[in-house]
């Protein structure tokens, strides 16, 4: 099967040729298949967000190539292949929940009827139909993030890029949102790239975890998570879940040790 995302020999340097030059990513190679749920995991400064933004063409690589659906990342962005969710919900304050979800559809000139149908479907998907006329500041953090997910999926992008989307939520809300995201993922069959620094979160959600290390940011290991699908609350109590967490942790630590001796 042809990969959805294919990253070849990608490096990213910020402030090239200046004193504050930073090598954010070095020699990244990664392929992601359709329908995968891939987490980018690592300590802060490992370039996981940078890698996500390279895939989404919000920044461009200094070297190497990013291909998405068989074309360059810039073309994929112009073709509206990406739905983005950030750590902050980034809802527009002056728009109601409904009008926030409609934002991408307006930008993409969807006809009015189609906009309304899609918005209704999306709010049902994230279970917020009753809040369609609310304003963002009237919602809790978890609800705001659900609106952001609905907005990202409204135009049926083939890839969902999520940058620590649950990072600002409390633990209970976070676990609920993880379940919700998995349900949405299985219903929409979207390919998800998910940035996090939480090991249990990455293991619970993903089909594969990409472990990264800092200075310069690079991939130190890719771990298949063969936990049974669909994942449920019980998954977190599965012995295999703990084995996988240990495996990921070892991979992170192994790299730390190597980094210290270098």
């Amino acid at each position, binding site marked *: 099967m042809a990969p959805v995302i294919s990253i070849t020999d990608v490096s990213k340097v910020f402030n090239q040729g200046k004193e504050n030059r930073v090598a954010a990513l070095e020699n990244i190679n990664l392929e992601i298949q359709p329908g995968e749920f891939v987490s980018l995991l690592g300590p802060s400064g490992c370039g996981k967000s940078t890698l996500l933004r390279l895939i989404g063409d919000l920044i461009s690589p200094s070297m190497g190539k990013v291909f998405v659906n068989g074309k360059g990342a810039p073309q994929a962005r112009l073709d509206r292949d990406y739905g983005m969710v950030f750590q902050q919900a980034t809802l527009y304050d*002056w728009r109601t929940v409904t009008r926030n979800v409609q934002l991408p559809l307006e*930008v993409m000139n969807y006809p009015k009827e189609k906009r309304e149908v899609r918005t209704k479907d999306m709010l049902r998907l994230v279970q917020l139909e009753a809040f369609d006329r609310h304003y963002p500041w*009237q919602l809790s953090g978890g609800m705001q993030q659900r609106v952001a997910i609905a907005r990202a999926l409204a135009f049926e992008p083939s890839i969902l890029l999520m940058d620590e989307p649950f990072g600002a939520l409390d633990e209970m809300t976070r676990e609920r949102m993880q379940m919700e995201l998995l349900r949405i993922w299985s219903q929409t069959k979207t390919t998800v790239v998910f940035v996090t620094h939480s090991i249990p979160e990455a293991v619970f959600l993903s089909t594969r975890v990409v472990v990264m290390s800092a200075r310069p940011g690079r991939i130190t290991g890719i771990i298949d998570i063969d936990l049974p699908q669909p994942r449920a609350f019980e998954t977190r109590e599965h012995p295999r879940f703990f084995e996988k967490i240990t495996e990921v942790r070892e991979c992170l630590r192994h790299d730390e040790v190597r980094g210290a001796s270098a």
Partner: protein
Amino acid sequence: MAVTQALELETTGTPAIPGWRQLLRRAGSFLAVLLALGLLWEGYKVIGQAVIGVVPLPVRPDDNSMPHVWTIVGTLFEPARRGGEEILLIILMRAALFTWREAAAGFVIGSLFGFALGAVLGRFVLFERSLMPYIVASQTVPLLAIAPMVVIWAGRLGWPAWWSVSIISAYLTFFPVTINTLRGLRSPNPTAVELMRSYAASEMQILWKLRLPSALPYIFTALKVSATASVIGAIVGELPSGIPDGLGRILLNFAQYFSTGPERLYAAVFGAAVLGIVFAALVALAERLSLPEARRLE
């Protein structure tokens, strides 16, 4: 039922105070401050007269420099000219309305120009760098020097005198709007812009759907400042234009007779202040109607 319950549990908004109860409370505090100022005035007079000659005072507390509050209020209800029929209040109100028309025209012209300038500067950084010093300088040039020039130029073009007053008023109005439009258009956080970029939105779409709505609270703040500035501009503009119907001529007249009837100048100053406050309040009302409370900058 379940929905309302969820709403109460999950929403974080503060309970809304009914709009006009809040308005009433505001009017109450306004009157309280007015009363306090009156008491302060009269208190200064009483204490000042007791300690005069012993303690140096900035303003003489006698009735010629500081007439009693009730004298000032009383003069509003007396004929302004000997043998005249109309009381000062009516004359002031008519003059204020006249000046307000000039100021309002200047306010509209100045705001539109200020907004357009702010939008252009926001879009082209090069323009901002090269033009901003001149825009700032435009506000340090004394209005009193510019006003006669504008009046003469407008006269040569055959424009009615009050047009030049509005132009002078617009000159004072545009600056806050330009600065705040610029700030407002740049106020969205980078993620909000990236979101638009991820939709492959055009520059125009980003402007209309993100930057402009984000700028609105800033622009309204500027408009409130501009409303009062436009009144000052109109009053100053009336002086070289020789327009007899506005507050400018009345203030000039009463200033000349200050030593014999100070209370009338104070009354006229009060009238000009009220005009500025009312205009600013009208803009604030427009803000209330177009922005929800959570989005207003206070």
